[in-house]
């Protein structure tokens, strides 16, 4: 349990070297001008406030509770082998900070997986989360750029999804054919179907039916454009026609005791790449164009919700 370095230090026989006043002291102080700038907000509060402080604890302090209890159990002859019943050190949990997400994880890896899956590469227009920055770019370009559809009439604008390929096509269908033929994607890969974002309630019920282990705060994804998470939702609603009423407490971490996020693996042919997160409000719906550079920067507290990955095909909406 003890590290060897510590053991060596404590069991060293030569005591002369161990005097504190014999230890070289590091230089104190900072370079001029490199001190903390104590940034003041509007109400004049300093932002970074830690000051080293010695702490005096009186006998009734709460920090002393466990030790006192242990002592009194001993006095009352109730001590036993401590290993059985005492509180053991708990590892801290990790929490996702995206507002409204609030999920808690027991390991860093779980948290990072969650974050990378749901909150990275999110399109701020439609809250869909894409697997990579490149696919996000393509998504934004094809779906939220009005210039795109104009240009697409005259030139090949639909990029191949496979990185490094570089081919471009005049229509979605052509791209789809290319990807299937050349890159050997399965033909029932989730191309171009318009994803519908279900009402949470329906999503939850379906989810429970399907027995997926997805977090209830995420909607079950329906087959949609490329790279959608699959959990075979039969019906598809029109995109953006659903009023997303938030179930009370749905995003309350306490009501979602599941710690890890798992993506559904129902569909075994298409890659599982994207996740849809149920949006909590209807705010981020506008179809109008946005500045390109703002896509990556979420605008409101709804960032990360309703993240749906993939592409929305023309098909359904026409």
């Amino acid at each position, binding site marked *: *349990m*003890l*590290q060897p*370095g*510590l053991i060596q*230090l*404590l069991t060293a026989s030569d*005591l002369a070297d*161990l005097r*504190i006043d014999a*230890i070289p*002291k*590091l230089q*104190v*102080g*900072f*370079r001029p001008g*490199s001190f903390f*700038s104590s*940034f003041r907000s509007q109400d004049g509060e300093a*932002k*970074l406030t*830690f*000051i*080293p402080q*010695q702490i*005096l*604890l*009186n006998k*009734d302090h709460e*920090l*002393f509770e*466990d030790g006192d*209890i*242990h*002592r*009194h*159990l001993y*006095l*009352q*002859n*109730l*001590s*036993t*082998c*401590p290993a059985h019943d*005492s*509180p053991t050190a*708990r590892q*801290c*949990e*990790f929490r996702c900070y*995206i*507002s409204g997400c609030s999920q*808690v994880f027991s390991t860093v890896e779980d948290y990072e997986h969650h974050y990378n899956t749901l909150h*990275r*590469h999110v399109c701020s227009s439609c809250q869909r989360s894409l697997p*990579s*920055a490149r696919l996000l770019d393509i998504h934004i370009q094809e779906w939220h750029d009005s210039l795109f559809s104009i240009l697409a009439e005259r030139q090949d604008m639909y990029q191949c999804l496979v990185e490094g390929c570089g081919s471009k096509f005049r229509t979605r269908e052509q791209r789809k054919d290319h990807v299937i033929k050349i890159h050997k994607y399965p033909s029932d890969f989730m191309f171009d179907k318009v994803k519908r974002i279900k009402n949470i309630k329906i999503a939850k019920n379906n989810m429970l039916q399907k027995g997926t282990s997805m977090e209830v705060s995420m909607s079950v994804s329906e087959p949609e454009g490329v790279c959608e998470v699959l959990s075979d939702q039969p019906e598809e609603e029109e995109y953006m026609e659903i009023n997303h009423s938030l179930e009370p407490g749905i995003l309350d971490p306490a009501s979602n005791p599941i710690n890890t996020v798992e993506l559904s693996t129902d569909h075994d042919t298409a890659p599982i790449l994207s996740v849809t997160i149920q949006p909590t409000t209807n705010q981020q719906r506008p179809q109008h164009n946005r500045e390109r550079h703002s896509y990556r920067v*979420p605008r409101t507290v709804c960032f990360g919700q309703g993240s749906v990955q993939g592409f929305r095909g023309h098909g359904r909406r026409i």
Partner: protein
Amino acid sequence: MWRLNAVRHKAGRQGSDLEEFKFKRREHEKELRRARKDSQLVSKRLLLNDDEEEDGTMDTLASDQVVELFNIVRHGRDLVKKEADLRALRKALRSPSAHLILIKQPNSIAILVTNLCGPNPQCRLEAARCLHELSHSPHSEVDSLRLRQATPYLITFLSGQSPKFTELCLYTLGNMCPDSENVRDMLLAQGIIPALNNCIQIHRTNLAVVEAVGFTLSQLISANYVTERIIPAVLASGLIPRLLSVLTPDSQFGLGPVIECAWCLHYLACSNVDNGALVAQGTLLHCTSLLVTLGVAVAKGSIEEGIELLIWPLLRCVGNLLLSGPLGALQPQLNDSRLLAALCAFPQAFLQTHPALARESVWVLNNLTAAADSSVFCSALFYLNLVPALIQLLPFSHGINIMVLRVLGNIAHQGREYCLHLAQAGLLPALCATLKMADTEVVTFSLEVLGQLMASDPQLAEEFVKQSGLPVLEAIQYSNQETIRLRATHLLEHHLLPHCPVDTSASQ
């Protein structure tokens, strides 16, 4: 004399007995916690006599039988027989119901006191045992006030020579101390403190008596409202050096006496009445010295059962005494750098069994590193390569990681060299992990420490970015906790973005 062995024997019973015992213990623990919250945490000790099993059969006598026994004692004239009569009465008193019966008898206490001071030593012993049983009574009617006729005698006998008898008197008095402020004032007036001083001097080679003195003193000074008279009296009495002499590292005394004396020192130090006097009498030196010895024992793997009962009060005593004056003045008493190693070893050794002890150990480190002249200790932590051991404690809750972050923050505040050394020890990736934790306080402290690191040298900001720290801070900006949002934003704006372009394609 308390031996943990005795308790272990009890716990060694198999099967349902053990489960029941554990269940009872858990229930009891809950009660104790409740009592502590009400500042009513009090324990009494019952000395068992040689002729009794711990859980021997107790014949609960009918009330008239008890009365009968008492009357025999009261009226008996034959001293030889009286001893047997008293013994019979004492055995009857093992059963708490007999207590109520006895105290209802007229002059019952007076009769016992008469025998306590009588000519026959055996009768004295038996009478003392009877009073001892009463002092441990669960009934609130049998309170110390009722027994107060006995106290002047009990106190006087503390200066006597007979160890067994003295031990009884001590525990009886010790059981009475917590009952009320009136009782304590009375005991103080009757001279309990000089008597204790005398007693520990006379019986200094008898570990059972030393332990009893420690216990009684701890009961006296751990009660509420003792800072005005009792603690100053103790500080002035000359008891401190005697307590300290029990703390010698290779004491042949065994753990019991040392534990009691250590808890006394803790209660004295945390009352903060005159910690300068405590330090002047060598308390800090002795306690740190013993902590080092215990650290060495822990390093060697020879952790005796119950050793945490000793480590706990020593840590608390040292922790509080560090505030008694400027650290520079205390340094001669803190000159053994192995103290720092011990303070890092205890958390590692006790993390799973007693996390609160781990936390208190780090608290002492905080007090060592937070003072104005702590630079020598901070430097020592690097020199002895102890910082990685602290960083390894960061995943743990129970307040441990917050205390560790305080220590790291203290070190970072010393200066640029210290910040660079902290980074070398691997603090930045560790902070990337703590920044993701659920506990807001942990995140806040992490941001503070991170801020100090980055402010000290831009190279640390670059290093943080290399550790993929940027997305972590960006994520925190969306937290619903304003405190951490503002700090994260501040760090991004002041230390990170000016130094490197916000590279959103960095994830590609």
